[in-house]
């Protein structure tokens, strides 16, 4: 079951030859990724390189046109997003997708949906097992909000749309933690943040790994963040992986430099 040349036991997420085409357009082309347990692994690349598509493939929003995807030893191809979550992979979104007309607390409760009993009578009649799950979910929700300090806890009954931008990013992470995931996919978690907020985000990403035992896969544009936080970096350009290695190696890689300088968005 394990390949002789690579110890697969500490591979958390393994992508082999994953491709995705939309009609005539190849968004991801033959991608190989091997993310080890406990790593903070970053995917970087110019705009349009296919990074979010990779996230969407992993989480079941798209199905790969070809290739294999294994999580913790078993294939995740064909799973719907909620089943992917139940396997232990959670994610945040580039554009922040919170439930705006739900409160902070309710958002985090939805994140724990998988912990509630599934059978209808329990839910409809609020049977004891349901009530116990609800109690536990409430406590855990407050714990998760508290991870970021007292401010989100204090605002638990606020509508999510009323929060500051930085708080909305934090809330999305708190929601994503609800299912007790093993792997967390963060899509540009510091987008739109100034330097101070970015530094704070870097700190809590590291704390996420330390305190929740998470493996983290990161899409990030700010190179100083990526270089500082990552154990390993893969660089995508036009859907292909053009480089992979330690941060120091990537910084010196000529192809990477050309990809960024040659394609910088001139908005």
């Amino acid at each position, binding site marked *: 079951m394990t390949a002789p040349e690579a110890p697969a036991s500490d591979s958390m997420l393994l992508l082999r030859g994953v491709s995705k085409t939309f009609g005539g357009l190849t968004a991801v082309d033959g991608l190989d990724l091997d993310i080890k347990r406990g790593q903070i692994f970053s995917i970087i690349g110019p705009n349009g390189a296919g990074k*979010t598509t990779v996230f969407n493939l992993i989480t079941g929003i798209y199905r790969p046109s070809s290739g294999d995807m294994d999580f913790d030893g078993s294939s995740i191809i064909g799973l719907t997003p909620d089943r992917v979550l139940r396997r232990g992979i959670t994610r945040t979104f580039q*554009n922040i997708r919170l*439930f705006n*007309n739900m409160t902070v607390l309710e958002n985090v409760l939805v994140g724990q949906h998988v912990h509630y009993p599934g059978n209808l009578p329990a839910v409809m009649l*609020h049977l004891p097992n349901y009530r116990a799950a609800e109690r536990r979910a409430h406590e855990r929700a407050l714990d998760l909000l508290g991870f970021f300090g007292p401010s989100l806890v204090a605002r638990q009954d606020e*509508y999510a749309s009323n929060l500051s931008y930085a708080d909305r990013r934090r809330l999305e992470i708190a*929601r994503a933690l609800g299912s007790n995931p093993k792997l967390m996919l963060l899509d540009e978690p510091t987008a739109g943040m100034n330097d101070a907020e970015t530094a704070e985000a870097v700190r809590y990403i590291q704390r996420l790994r330390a305190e929740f035992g998470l493996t983290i896969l990161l899409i990030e544009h700010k190179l100083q963040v990526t270089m500082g936080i990552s154990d390993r970096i893969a660089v995508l350009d036009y859907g292909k992986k053009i480089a992979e290695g330690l941060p120091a190696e990537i910084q010196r890689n000529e192809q990477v430099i050309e990809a960024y300088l040659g394609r910088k968005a001139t908005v």
Partner: protein
Amino acid sequence: MSTSVPALSKGLRSGIGDARRRLDAALNDTQIAGRPPRYYLTGWRFGVLALAVAALLPVTRNGALLATAVSVGIYVLLALGLNIVVGYAGLLDLGYVAFFVIGNYTVATFTGGIMLASDRVTVLHIPVVTFWLLLPLAALLAGVFGVLLGAPTLRLRGDYLAIVTLGFGEIMPIVFQNIPWFFGQLGMSALRPNDVATPLGQISFNQSDPLNNMWFYYLTLALVVVVILAVSSLRDSSLGRAWVAIREDETAAAASGVNLVRTKLLAFGLGAVTGGIGGALNAAYLQAIAPTDFSFAISITVLVMIVLGGIGSIPGVILGALLLRYFDVSLLGQINDAVHRSPLVAPGGSPLHFLASFDFNTSKLLIYGLILLTMILLRPQGLVPNVRRQRELKGIGAAIEGTSAVGLLEREGAGMDEVAADTVGTAELAGSGSDAQGREG
């Protein structure tokens, strides 16, 4: 557990406290997350008052009033059910009459038939199948059909969902009309008494006997109360939150662990169940049904009740049902009479004299359409709104999503990269030159 008086009275008080909280929760769509309720009319006190008034209605000994009340009760059940599909899950179902039909025919099949010459022709009379069995059976069958009819619509949005459900709503009565077993257009009348046997005697709907009216009315009222409690219980549960989540953002909901298929099918199924219950009551009450009784008009009536009263709001849809039934049964006729008697419509009295020949009673659907338009344009959240729905419809929450580029641009220190990352499309068009457009970043 001690059976001493203090312990019992403590138990009683906490039981009453629980009941009070349940009643509060059941009616309080106007409250959210620990804030004080905005419409005090819908607290537990109002619930107790309404229940007392409803319970005392038979004191009037007015058979016709009780008959109307039963009819209102049936529509309240339908409105509560459709509210689950449209109000909670946000799925526009225009074919709700299908479940009402199933409920009716479940009862009619086992208790009804037609008279041919002097022969009684029946469908399926099994003496042991009493109304107490038929009621849950109707609910169950309707629920099953709710799931069946909902299943093909799962990937559809908006207009297409509405059209497909509308189609199913049209098909159902026609199916019963064309299967000879159910006597087609002749419909069926009660050949076997629809008597509901209770320890206190038979409940049958016999308008000349006020006492019988009364028990059937209480049965309807009891079912309405049970359904209100059940629906509010669902609303405040993990399933209720899942429904709000899929209404807000399906992708985020799925990413948070909500099974979209199951959650939507549960909405269709559970919503259909009350349609079945209402249908069963209806057949027992009318004692005679025909396929022509059931049409899109019923689907749209229930929808207007919901929109008028308040989408997603339990007190709202109840109010909507009450208002519209009162309008239909009583007010419309009065308007008709008033207009026809007024000097405005006398020949030469005013430009409005053409109204003299206009029969308002047949313009029911026209008026419903006007009500629907008016509400959607002026007050889409309804008369007694659900707080969350009110926010959604006023676009407060919606303004934030999808404009993160704007949010970013307004922030100090937002670099061009960050803006580009969030507005992938625009960045591609701006920066890629001759490269392929529309690629994902």
